[in-house]
């Protein structure tokens, strides 16, 4: 359960204040599928970063599962990011010198998990994304779609509740983009809260909730036609 109330995020550029988020109030239920659309510079990424605790609001309250997370210390925020939130980026952001498996392993290392507990979970995450035979490949030996699948495996290996994706298909061709979205939707089917920023109206319209942003404000919301009926029974 994500609750934002009266969130503002201002940037000071010279003597000018940019209102990247302007009084955003929003509630997202667990297991929901939300797409965020809007013109460039409307504050989509800022909102997503805030939801992922990568950024702090200038004012307003952010509750995650009932807990005010903006009041947490650095270390506690890092812990929440590690345990409860997964990120998928437009640029993939894989560590180039690490293999696919090692990239997926990273969040588990940061969680302080011992190697014998990490290995099966990494293998499982790769298996789920059909990457088992690519696990020893370096990112530059993988296609864009495969890279994004590695990134998704990395985002989900800690079994988070929320998956934040900022234009996950932005650097992919149409087919691999479709693949990636299907994978994300599949994860959502299994209970993961999916929040995805996209420029593609066709993709955005697949979400159950479609948020539109303009100049840092939530402009309009549409209820999607929800291609599949989501199951809520699996946690």
């Amino acid at each position, binding site marked *: 359960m994500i609750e934002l109330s009266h969130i503002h995020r201002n940037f000071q550029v010279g003597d000018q204040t940019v209102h990247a988020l302007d009084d955003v109030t929003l509630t997202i239920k667990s297991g929901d599928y939300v797409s965020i659309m809007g013109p460039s510079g409307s504050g989509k990424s800022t909102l997503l970063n805030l939801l992922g605790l990568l950024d702090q609001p200038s004012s307003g309250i952010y509750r995650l599962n009932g807990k005010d997370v903006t009041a947490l210390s650095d270390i506690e925020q890092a812990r929440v990011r590690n345990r409860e939130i997964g*990120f998928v980026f437009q640029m993939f952001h894989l560590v180039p010198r690490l293999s696919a498996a090692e990239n997926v392993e990273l969040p588990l290392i940061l969680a302080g998990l011992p190697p014998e507990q990490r290995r099966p979970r990494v293998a499982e995450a790769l298996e789920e994304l059909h990457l088992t035979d690519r696990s020893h490949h370096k990112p530059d030996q993988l296609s864009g779609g495969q890279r994004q699948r590695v990134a998704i495996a990395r985002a989900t290996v800690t079994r988070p509740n929320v998956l934040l994706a900022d234009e996950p298909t932005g650097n992919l061709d149409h087919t691999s983009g479709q693949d990636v979205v299907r994978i994300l939707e599949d994860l959502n089917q299994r209970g993961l809260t999916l929040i995805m920023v996209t420029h593609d109206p066709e993709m955005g319209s697949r979400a159950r909730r479609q948020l539109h942003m303009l100049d840092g404000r939530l402009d309009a919301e549409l209820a999607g036609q929800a291609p599949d009926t989501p199951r809520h029974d699996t946690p």
Partner: protein
Amino acid sequence: MIPHSPDVARFSWGALRGYPARTLLMLTAMAIGVAAVVVLTSLGEGARRYVTGEFASLGTNLVIVLPGRSETAGLNPTTLMGETPRDLTLDDALALTRSYNVRRIAPINVGSADVSWQSRSRESVILGASHELLDIRHWKIAQGRFLPNTDLDRATPVAVIGSTIRNELFGAKPALGEWIRIGDRRFRVIGIMGSEGRSIGVDVQETVIIPVAAAQQLFNTTSLFRILVEARSRDAIQPVKRFVIQTLQERHQGIKDVTVVTQDAVLATFDRILGALTYAVGGIAAISLAVAGILIMNVMLVAVSQRTAEIGLLKALGASPRQIIVLILAEALLLSLLGALLGLLLGEAGSLVIRHAFPVLPAQAPIWAIVTALLVAIITGLLFSLLPARRAAQLDPVLALSRR
């Protein structure tokens, strides 16, 4: 929540291998710093040991008497009256035996003359000495025996020759018992020096030793080059020195015209000077380590900005600022450790080369220098990485991730 140390080590190792040019640069800087400390201190230590060894080979508890005052500072009666200093004589030497504190003495005369046997001839250093010299100098006889134990004024025509002289004059033929000619006199070879005999200024292998009285006749002089006086113990050195000065002053009409050198004073001075020298060069080399530390700081700063995206990603994946600091410091620690070990190897190889090139110089870095070099390397490596590590920990993840 600190990750397991093997994981940290593996991650840092991967990061180092991921940027080989940077890693090599820093390793080299560190290694050169450490190697410089090791080599320079080993040179200093080698020089100190060389000098100490040379003094030890001169003999122990020695008081050396030289004619004339070498500390010519200021006025003294001899210079005032325009006299040349009085010579040291054999009687002076004999007078010095009359103290309980004196164990033995050896008057010495030095000159050079042609030495020949049959048709072969060469010029050689001739050392006039006495029976006692062998023990005072801790020399060894290889063949035959040393000068006989007779009165100092007996000019017995016998000679003990160095092995080089022996080889040059006799080749493979036996030398013992042969008569050789020194200047215009004939001497019988009674002994050949062992190879140990080496001391400052004298190579015994190139020397012919004859009784001091014979040398005085040969060079037509009554004076001595110096008198070696061996004190009974270390504590007796100062009493012997006073005794020598007093005795010779009385014998020379109250004029202090000799110089008395105690070897342990000279040795202590050399030891101090060379010890200080070792510290000094060690310190200078340590500065190069500090320079290496600054280089590490700069390169780590570059590394952090090079890897901004990676650090931002680690934060997004849930790395706390402390974890980031640990990762960066682990990298620096690994680098310093590897660099220091590499430097140690380089430095030890360097001193090995020096030992081979100059066998007389026992170049060996002292333990304190090695330990200090390693510690300084690791501490500078860590210290100078604190700033880059903190900078990395404070990176704004959003900006870090959005940068290309």
